């Protein structure tokens, strides 16, 4: 987050192109620095806050007088900044026998301000700070049992404000109490600054306070999130459903499954608030749906997902499809995926979407997402909770198979560079590991140990190839292997397997081209290939056909290397 100095510097920038929002601040403390921070923070939000900052301690004068400067400014929102220090002064001057009603009377005063605003400038929104609960420690912990204690009355007042805010349309509480709890008293305020300048917040804290206010203003301007698009493997559960199977994924009690369970509970709460969930996963659809239908520890069920897309197309295109089906603005979408490649792809192809960089440790997903505060809103109605159902029905109706036009441009832009080479000592362990772990992209599911890999490498009757891939976002390492056995006048692809992480980036095409060239270089004119189905490798059942090999039926293919037209690829 920008520092106070940076926010202050924003004030000198050209804001003429930004949308204007008329705003007023009035408080019972010094508000000039707060007003500065707000204007600077607004710039960070792409807004020009046209500010009226009332003089010190003028709340009453500005709000009660219909012809005040504040009202003449015609603000779209007014911030009322009342500090706990002043609240405490008033409390101390209250007679002992009246202290039990202190909060109620303060609430009446605040309601008076709200009413005056409503009658003078109908439609103007009110943002009211609540009171950070800084106890005076007169009673110590026992303050909780003393109805007239300052702590008791402050908490009561905050609760009363919550009750009243839920009744008054157009009033929004900005929760400074929660902010102070998060940062602690020492960071929240700077005592000498209060005494020297009547500033109840430290300069550093103004950055966070202004950010909280701007979240509300942003929501008032209808900039709110409506849909969360979810990846599945290692995002909603631990492991890969296509490889690990229903019993192997971590959700519930297995492995780190509790973290995923709590994450799902939170997502479920979002749906109850009216946020739509959608799934966008690189999987076979029936496999992807299996945990939702059959796993007892899954919190989320298919009913909670408004739009479920699982296929092997790229995610940016799929998210655009989800957007079309749900018919929501792209800037109201949040995309959650554990894989940085997918996140970068989506970010670069859909700049409007919000893509949080999920932490590596799933235990931190939830804490991180909560800290981002993405779901600020300004309304809640009971029927928000049934929104998922409506969208689900809509999604059933719309089944479009839109073309993926600009994906090619994206691939070109990735600067993908591959390396193909025969097996070497250095890579034996990784090749063996990939052989053991690949289930989905595995044509004949022949497994090799490290010793067998070594034997193949040394056997002149085999052509062996491994492939690495890197792009501008990073190095994927060794991601695919082909084992080709030379026969009399042809070569047989004994196995080909690849990591699903790099699917659909024309790496398949690059590998096919490399195999054809290698066989050709060996002086052989014909390639034979075979696909042997398993429970998990349906995704590659027709890959040889798609790559231009001749389909002989029964999973068998062949390819004349001399007449083969090299496949188009964006990997070099």
């Amino acid at each position, binding site marked *: 987050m920008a520092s*106070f100095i940076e926010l*202050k510097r924003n004030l000198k920038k050209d804001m003429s192109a930004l949308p204007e929002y008329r705003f007023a601040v009035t408080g019972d403390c010094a508000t000039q620095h707060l007003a500065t921070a707000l204007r600077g923070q607004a710039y960070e939000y792409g807004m020009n806050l046209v500010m009226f900052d009332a003089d010190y301690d003028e709340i009453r004068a500005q709000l009660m007088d219909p012809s005040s400067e504040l009202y003449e400014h015609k603000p779209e929102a007014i911030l009322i900044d009342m500090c706990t220090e002043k609240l405490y002064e008033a409390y101390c001057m209250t007679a002992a026998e009246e202290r039990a009603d202190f909060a109620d009377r303060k609430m009446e005063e605040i309601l008076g301000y709200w009413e005056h605003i409503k009658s003078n400038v109908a439609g103007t929104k009110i943002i009211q700070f609540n009171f950070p609960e800084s106890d005076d420690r007169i009673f110590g912990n026992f303050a909780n049992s003393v109805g007239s204690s300052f702590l008791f009355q402050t908490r009561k007042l905050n609760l009363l404000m919550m009750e009243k805010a839920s009744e008054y349309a157009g009033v929004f509480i900005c929760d400074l109490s929660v902010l102070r709890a998060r940062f602690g008293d020492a960071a929240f305020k*700077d005592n*000498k600054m209060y005494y020297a300048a009547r500033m109840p917040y430290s300069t550093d804290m103004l950055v966070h306070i202004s950010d909280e206010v701007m979240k509300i203003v942003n929501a008032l301007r209808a900039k709110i999130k409506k849909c969360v698009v979810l990846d599945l493997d290692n995002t909603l559960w631990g492991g890969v459903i296509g490889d690990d199977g229903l019993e192997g994924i971590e959700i519930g009690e297995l492995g780190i499954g509790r973290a995923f369970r709590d994450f799902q509970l939170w997502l479920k709460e979002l749906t109850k608030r009216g946020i739509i969930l959608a799934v966008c996963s690189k999987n076979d659809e029936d496999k992807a749906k299996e945990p939702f239908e059959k796993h007892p520890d899954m919190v989320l069920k298919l009913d909670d997902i408004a739009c479920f897309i699982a296929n092997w197309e790229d995610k940016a295109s799929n998210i655009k499809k989800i957007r079309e089906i749900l018919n929501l603005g792209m800037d109201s979408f949040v995309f959650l995926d554990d894989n940085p490649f997918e996140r970068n792809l989506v970010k670069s192809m859909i700049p409007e979407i919000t893509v949080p960089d999920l932490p590596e440790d799933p235990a931190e997903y939830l804490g991180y997402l909560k800290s981002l505060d993405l779901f600020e809103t300004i309304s809640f109605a009971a029927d928000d909770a049934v929104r998922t159902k409506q969208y689900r029905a809509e999604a059933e109706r719309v089944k479009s198979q839109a073309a993926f036009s600009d994906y090619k441009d994206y691939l070109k832009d990735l600067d993908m560079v591959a390396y193909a080479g025969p097996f070497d000592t250095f890579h034996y362990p990784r090749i063996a590991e990939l052989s053991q772990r690949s289930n989905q992209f595995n044509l004949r599911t022949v497994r090799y140990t490290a010793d067998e890999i070594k034997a193949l490498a040394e056997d002149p009757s085999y052509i062996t190839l491994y492939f690495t891939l890197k792009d501008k976002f990073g190095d994927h390492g060794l991601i695919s292997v082909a084992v080709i056995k030379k026969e009399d006048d042809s070569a047989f692809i004994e196995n080909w397997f690849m990591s699903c992480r790099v699917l659909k980036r024309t790496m398949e095409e690059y590998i096919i081209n490399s195999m054809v060239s290698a066989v050709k270089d060996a002086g052989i004119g014909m390639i034979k290939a075979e696909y042997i189905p398993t429970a998990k490798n349906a995704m590659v059942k027709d890959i040889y056909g798609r790559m231009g090999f001749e389909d002989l039926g029964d999973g068998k293919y062949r390819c004349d290397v001399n007449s083969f037209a090299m496949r188009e690829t964006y990997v070099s």
Partner: protein
Amino acid sequence: MTREEILNKVNEVFHEVFDDDSIEVTETTTAKDIEDWDSLMHITLVSEIENAFGFKFMMKDVVGMKNVGEMLDIIAQNI
């Protein structure tokens, strides 16, 4: 830290706070010498000096500092 090093670092903070790299503060510089140095800027300046040197001024320092030289004295005592 020598007094000169402290002065140099203080000067950098002035550049930051006033967003003006042409400022050259000396021991005798006062608020009158820098156009934007009003009471509001003073608060910001104090906070940033605190952040830069990792200590807290006392209230009497905040309201009592007469010139940059006095500011340097206080910093030198606290670091």
